[in-house]
Every structure is written in C-alpha cells, then in structure tokens.
C-alpha cells in the first residue's frame, strides 16, 4: 500500500472524524440506482423515480401496453402506432395520426433515450415518462380513450389483471398503466455508436468525413450549444424559428409557462439514431438531415424570441455534408433498439 504524506493523512483523519469515506479518482459521484437494463456504451445512468423502480416484469407489462391497440377508443391505435420501432420510434410523418385519422399539429417525438428527459412532450408539459404516458391515451385526437375507460377495458382482460397483481399487487389502475409504460420506454436506449468508440480510443471508428463533421458539430456549427452530452440534448427548450414563416406559429412552451421568453420554444430532441426518425422538427416540416443543417446554417427564422445562438453559420456545402455524415454514421448505434411487438394477453 502506498504511504500517505502527512498532508494526505491529515485529510484522511479529518474525513474519518467527520464520518466520511473519501472518493478516489474515477469514482462516479453521480452513481444512480442500480439499473435493470444494460446501458449501451456512451450513455450515462438515468434517474428512475423512487416509487417506480425498474423490474423485468413491469417492463414486460409496459411493452404489452405500449403495443396494445385496445388502449384506443376504436382499437386501432397504440402508442407504437405513432412511436413505431420500425420508424425510429416515430412515424415517418409530419404529424401524429390518431383515431379516425385525426391529425395533431406536432410530430411524434422519438422514444429513443426519452429516459433522460425530466420534462416530456415537445413543450415539456408533462413531468417524466410517468406524467406523459396517459396523455395520448386520453387525448381525443390521439387514442381517445378516457383513462377510467382504459382501466375498465384492461380490467376485463385476465392476462392484464394477473400481471397487475404480480407487478403492482393491485387491480388495474391508471397509475400502474403509466408506470408500466414509462418503465418500458426507459429501456429504449441508443448508444454504442462509432462516436462512442472513437471517444473510447478507437481512431478508426469514424470515417474522415465523420471526423470533420464531428469537429464542425462541436465548434463552428455550434450544434453542441444545445445538442450536448451523452444523449446529444440539453433536455431544455429553444426557439430556433421553426414555424415562424407561417401564420400563427405554435407557441410551444409558452403555452405551459406563460413566460414570453418561452414563446416558440420546443424541446431539444436527442440525436442518437436520428437518421431513422425523419421528418424533423416539432412540426415535421424538414424532410432530411441536410435540410436541417441548412436551416441552421441560415440562422433559423427570425422572431423576437429567437435563441441568441441562432446566427448564420457560414458553413460550406462540404461542411454541411460532413455534419450530416457525422450524424448519420457517427451517431448510428451498433444495435438499434428494435423491439418486436409482444404477444398480447
């Protein structure tokens, strides 16, 4: 054992007196609850609500509920209809489509890495995945099934009754539905991309173009001002001007907070496996990643609440192409989080 200097020893003694154990280099001060799911390379642990610990049985129940169209009024729409694993956990369309073909005014955000968001929906009106899960079920233009009816409907299915007893030690409840779906959604994780392997020391993980794109992403193009961290999102809300070229632009987070500065602000989406979930932006108005970068390159669309970071970037065509390659290749996970629909009770 390495000997301690007097100086070091003094601190150790002081720590012991205070009833402390000192951390050593590399100790994760943010160590979170034990995870049931394995985190892909590059991702940080996420928080799980104390009253909704992850269990395999609960995740399995949540998966069934997520894919079950009986949670809609006419048995035609499930969570997976708009957040489809085969379509980047979105739906390939500009807007979410609910029962009777009703269309909302916003796109279906991807479920990938939604575990990290403390506030859900494009405008952050729901707290956590548990706060979000029941919203679309009850929404008249989405699944259109009042929650008490959903509880009634599921209660008539013996397989669900049995699982709720096992998982929650209760009958079918709204709270249980929300917790189970949230638990399943927490397992939809994307990591272990070439970017992560490059960061871990594999110089060959990224192509030359992707490396150039990465450098632009974190510097000249300023993408990392908002798309930062392990999941490439600051989890916050920004106004980049999307929709301000039309009449009556969506007020976004303003509708939740009533703060003028939040007008036109929407959640920063995560970017891992982003190539799978076109079209982009909260209104699905941008079809390709190239068009996304071009939108930023011109500085977005001017409006009074436009984020200060939004300025023309003066990127060349080659630089735009490199950034797109970085997102398409560099952030593409080795194991896309595909989930097949389960057998339903």
């Amino acid at each position, binding site marked *: 054992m390495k000997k301690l200097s007097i*100086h070091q020893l003094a*601190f150790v003694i002081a720590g012991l007196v205070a009833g402390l154990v000192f951390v050593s280099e590399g100790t994760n001060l943010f160590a979170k609850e034990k995870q049931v799911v394995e985190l892909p390379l590059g991702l940080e642990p996420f928080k799980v609500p104390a009253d909704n610990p992850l269990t395999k049985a609960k995740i399995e129940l949540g998966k069934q509920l997520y894919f079950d169209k009986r949670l809609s009024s006419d048995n035609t729409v499930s969570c997976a209809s708009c957040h489809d694993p085969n379509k980047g956990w979105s739906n390939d369309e500009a807007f979410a489509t609910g029962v009777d073909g009703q269309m909302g005014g916003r796109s279906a955000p991807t479920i990938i890495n939604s575990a990290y968001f403390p506030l859900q929906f494009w405008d952050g009106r729901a707290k956590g995945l548990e706060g979000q899960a029941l919203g679309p079920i009850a929404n008249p233009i989405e699944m259109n099934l009042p929650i008490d009816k959903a509880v009634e409907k599921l209660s008539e299915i013996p397989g669900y009754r049995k699982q709720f007893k096992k998982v929650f030690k209760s009958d079918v409840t709204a709270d249980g539905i929300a917790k189970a779906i949230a638990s399943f959604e927490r397992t939809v994780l994307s990591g272990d991309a070439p970017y992560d392997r490059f960061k871990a020391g594999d110089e060959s993980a990224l192509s030359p173009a992707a490396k150039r794109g990465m450098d632009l992403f974190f510097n000249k193009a*300023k993408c990392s*001002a908002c798309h930062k961290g392990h999941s490439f999102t600051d989890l*916050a809300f920004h106004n980049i001007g999307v929709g301000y070229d039309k009449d009556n632009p969506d007020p976004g987070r303003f509708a939740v907070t009533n703060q003028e500065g939040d007008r036109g602000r929407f959640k920063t989406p995560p970017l891992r496996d982003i190539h799978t979930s076109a079209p982009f932006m909260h209104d699905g108005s941008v079809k390709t990643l190239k068009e996304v970068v071009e939108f930023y390159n011109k500085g977005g669309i001017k409006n*009074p609440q436009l*984020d200060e*970071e939004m300025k023309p970037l003066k990127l060349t065509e080659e630089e735009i192409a490199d950034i797109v390659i970085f997102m398409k290749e560099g952030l593409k996970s080795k194991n896309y989080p595909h989930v097949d629909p389960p057998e339903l009770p």
Partner: protein
Amino acid sequence: MKKIRVITSVFALLAMSTIVQAEPKVETVVEGLSVPCGVAIQPGTGHVFVADSAAGRVVRIVDGKIENVIVDFPIDKYGKGPTYPIGPLGLAFIDEKVLAVGGGGYPDAKDKLRVYNIPATGGDALNADEDDAAALEIPATDKLAGEGNFYGVAFTGDALFVTCNGDDTKGWISRAGVKGAKVGPFMRAIATKELTEVDAPVAITVAPDGSLAVGQMGEISLPGDGLLTFYDPKDGAKLANFETGLSDITGLAYAPKGKLLATDFAWADTSEGGLFQIAAKYTKKKQSIEVTKVTGLDKPTAIAVDAEGNVYVTVIGSGEGASGKLLKISNL
C-alpha cells in the same frame, strides 16, 4: 496526486457546517436599485459594493446611503422575456483599493473585465471608461466565439477567474493573472460545459481550500439542472461535481466556518427562488450534498458575506421600475 486533489476539494465542501436551523433575519439595506447583479465586501472598510447593473453604475453603501463609485457603464439586454437591461455584473476586490468589474453592457467579444483604483469614500465617482483602468476582452477566434456577460468574478490571490456567457458550446471560465498592478492576459481557462455537460457557469467563489466553487446555471428553461462544481485554479482540473436540484444558481459565497450559501434565481418559476445552504451529506458510501432553503427571495442575483457572517444578497424584485434591493440576512 490527482486522487488527493479530489479528496482535498471535496473535503472543502464537506467541511461545511450542518444545515441551518435558525430563523434568518432579513433586512432591506437599500432599495431603488435597477437590476443589481453583483455584490462584494471591501476589505478593510467592510463597505458593501453593488453593481447596479441597469443603472450602469457601481455603488457603495455607506451608512445606509448609496454613493456612486463608477458610473456610465454601457447597457445591453439579457433574456427573451422577461428581458433585463444589464451593465456591470460581477464584482471582486483584489485589495482594499482595487476592484475588478465584469462587464455585460456590450455584445459578446466586446464586453470587458475592468480593474479600477477606486476613490475613497466621498471622492468623485470614476467614469467606466476611466483611462487608467485595465479593460480586458476575449475576442473571437477562428473556432471560438468571443466572450461576454462576465457575471461572476473571483480573486484567488494571484488571478481573477471570470464566468463567461459567450461560447455556448464550451461554457468558459476565463482567467486574468494578477501580479502587482499588472492584470492579464485575460484568457479562456476552463471549458466547463465540456467537463460537466451542463451549460453556463455563472456563480463563482473561492473555497476555503483555494479551489474554485462554481455554480453551473444550466438552461433557464429547465428547472433543477444547476450544478455545483469544484475546479483546481492551477490547471482547471475538475475536482468534484454535484447535482444541486437548484435551477439557476446566480451566487455562491462561503460564510464563516465554511458554510456554503447559494442564491437561486429560478427563471422558470421565480417563486421557487431564494437563499440556500449547501451542506455535505454522506450515505451508503456515496458522497453527495444536501440543499436546504434558508429563505425565499424575489429574483436573487448575487451574494457576499462579511467577516461577521452577515449575508448580503442583491435581488431584482418584481415591482415596476427600480425595484431592486440590497438585503442583509443574518442569524443564519
């Protein structure tokens, strides 16, 4: 060696006393301030200096009265609604006669860290553009945006450390060496956003062990994402990092006996703002912190503590016009 640096810094935090129990006494020292954003205690005299930001001046409080010390700072604006006019921001004394002032009144890359030889009590106020004052900038480079909105200023004995709000991809703390009367060069030093993955260093102070304690504000649209991070001022190494649950930490200061206090502006819901104590906590082999609200405050912006442990906090307030105040909080 790094292991011990972590230990010592974390100990600086953990050495803090237990959580406040007493009912604090809150008094208004002066009112009629316009977006006050900085406060510092003058060594020797114990006078409280305030950056009366939207009024474009730095003032000192003598016997409960406001006295101009430096005037005519330029004014810019901050925020998208609410929007605040801002001029001088962070304050830090180098010694009894020399005051560093972080600027926020110009666009990024043009804002200045200025250092003034201040007049004695009752003397004529200086102009912000005083010829004798050092005026240091951090311009843009090929890859990096210029810096500005120098909100927090801390003096370690041989350098000024300044929180910056220009390059949102890096979140710089900048450093200006101080040797005798010479201040500078002023250079980017710690890329806090790369080290913490959270935006916007704002509050800064020097911990009892000499490390830098920094309040990372995070996103103003996202509640609860504020960090408390410790850095080694010698090389910028991150020593420890704690999630605080606070939203927008605007001020940090150590009171006697190592008690760490923080002000939280709480942009998303300012009714949640206030003065907080941050104390060490250790459970189940995990080191963490415990954050306790001392008192609610109306948009607190900066904090300083005098030798007797009296806490001075500037608040913007919610009234029309100059609703800002300097508060004195005691009995902690």
